[in-house]
């Protein structure tokens, strides 16, 4: 909980990870390249005091996770965006199985994302059903750029992807987080193209598609799609990080998103552990949209809008009653700040 002028701000971190990138888990040299690439983004955009040595970045463990999110990071609830990368990491990078450990320990604090890969075709459908039956899955995280047996990615409008989305909907899933962001070595940039979201959002009007990293650097394509499709939302992780190093640019991104999508479709995410929520939230709450941008775009970033972005918007997508949830969390030992 963040407090601002006597008001509580309930914070949901819509995009975070609990990964294991220790060298012993690297399947190939790509496991090493991947985490080094993440570490470079971490070092490049974090304030100096928030930069971790590489070793800690590879594996920070449960204590650091709970501290950085709930004890010092103002976060009330966090969404585990499971990422698999089985071709790079022996046990996966942060699968729903790995993530379920903390979900089980702090059931009210975490929402767990599962996933599917349409390239598994028929054979994967049962596995998907089993995952849904055996784990407390609240949403899905889809990674269209993931490598699989020589394939460099897939698209949300592939026929098998539609079959999986149908099944997910049947099994009660409402929210689909789709990773569409900056190039991460060695993945193919084409696989981050956002246009497939447009098709899926039209075909599945009752599913919500939260486009993680707002498609950066394809923000323009993302904005045209999200402005048209009422069920496409902006996941702000990565974009958030500019608030420190490039505040003016951050303001331009936010002004554009407010202009095209309005204040009810923007959702905070830290992308922890690439960036830590504490400084992101402090700097975001202290941030004022420059006057010329307010005038240029006819938008503002008021306290009420910040509160929507930090928690209220995504709470609505996941049917979370903030008052009831806050009361419940007050009793879990981590306490409210």
């Amino acid at each position, binding site marked *: 909980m963040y407090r601002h002028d006597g008001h509580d701000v309930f914070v949901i971190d819509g995009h975070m990870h609990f990964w294991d990138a220790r060298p012993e888990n690297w399947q190939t040299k790509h496991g090493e390249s991947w985490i080094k690439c993440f570490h*470079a983004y971490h070092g490049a955009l974090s304030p100096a005091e928030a930069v971790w040595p590489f070793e800690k970045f590879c594996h920070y463990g449960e204590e650091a996770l709970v501290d950085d999110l709930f004890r010092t990071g103002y976060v009330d609830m966090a969404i585990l965006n499971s990422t698999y990368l089985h071709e790079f990491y022996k046990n996966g990078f942060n699968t729903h199985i790995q993530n379920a450990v903390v979900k089980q320990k702090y059931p009210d604090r975490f929402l767990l994302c599962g996933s599917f890969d349409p390239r598994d075709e028929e054979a994967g459908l049962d596995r998907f059903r089993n995952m849904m039956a055996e784990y407390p899955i609240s949403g899905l995280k889809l990674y269209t750029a993931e490598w699989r047996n020589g394939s460099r990615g897939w698209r949300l409008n592939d026929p098998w992807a539609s079959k999986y989305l149908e099944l997910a909907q049947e099994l009660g899933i409402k929210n689909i987080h789709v990773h569409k962001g900056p190039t991460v070595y060695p993945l193919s940039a*084409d696989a981050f193209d956002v246009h497939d979201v447009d098709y899926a959002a039209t075909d599945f009007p009752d599913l919500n598609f939260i486009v993680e990293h707002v498609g950066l650097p394809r923000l323009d394509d993302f904005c045209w799609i999200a402005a048209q499709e009422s069920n496409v939302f902006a996941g702000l992780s990565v974009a958030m990080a500019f608030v420190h190093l*490039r505040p003016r*640019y951050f303001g331009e991104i936010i002004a554009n998103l407010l202009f095209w999508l309005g204040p009810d479709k923007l959702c905070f995410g830290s992308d922890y552990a690439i960036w830590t929520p504490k400084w992101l939230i402090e700097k975001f709450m202290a941030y004022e949209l420059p006057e010329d941008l307010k005038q*240029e775009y006819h938008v503002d970033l008021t306290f009420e809008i910040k509160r929507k972005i930090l928690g209220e918007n995504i709470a609505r997508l996941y049917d979370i009653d903030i008052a009831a949830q806050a009361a419940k969390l007050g009793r879990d030992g981590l306490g409210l700040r």
Partner: protein
Amino acid sequence: MTERAQPPCEFPAGYDGTAVIARLAQVLDPELDESVLDLGFIKSLRLVAGEAEVALQLPTSWCAVNFAYLMADDVRRALLAVPGVRRVTVSLGDHCAAAEIEAAVNAGRPFAEAFPAEAAGGLAALRLTFLRKGFLVRQQRLLQELRAAGCDAATICALRLDEVRVADEAIMIGDKSRLGGAAVLRRYLERRAELGLDCRPTAPLVVDIDGTPFTPERFAAHYENARTVRIALEANGSFCRALMTLRRLDGFEKGGGHVPA
């Protein structure tokens, strides 16, 4: 970027390297639409007996292979166009595909042949896409200048090329000047010519990517779109600069995790 980062250059005694530097300054990072020289991507240059060796350093070892090839190839061609330069060897340092790109570029082999799996759509199409996006961005910066000078949509749509010029590093609209935008206007006009759009004095100042003039009504939507394209393109520029700064710090990539305050 305003200041020009001069890479360490080694020229033969008495050789005037101005032409070489000027050629390099024209090579752009297609995505960032900025000179590779200004971006600091040229690490060193050595010219001996008509043979040039250029070392590039891109912001990360995972910069997209197609863009990396494109810049290395453009650098090589730019230097080969300098009188007296007979041979150019480009190196890419610790880029993930350095060996393959160097082998192809230095032998003048096309990208599609060197990287058959990556060449979806081809490099020419990629280059054109970014030239066109760059046109929108350059025009959008000019429009910002015009709006700041108090021009409304109707005025902007009515302006002809011969009504806007540069004098004393200022944009002149008729006899009114708007300070500071000279480079903005030049960059827009350069790209407009490069794309083969109508540049006759009586042509409208502001046209769309196909050369069609705007009505004030259509202009409003165009302006809103163009500014979003600019913000989108600046994302990679912002990443690149931040990552480049980091890369220049010895030790970070070795796991030290130290960045300057």
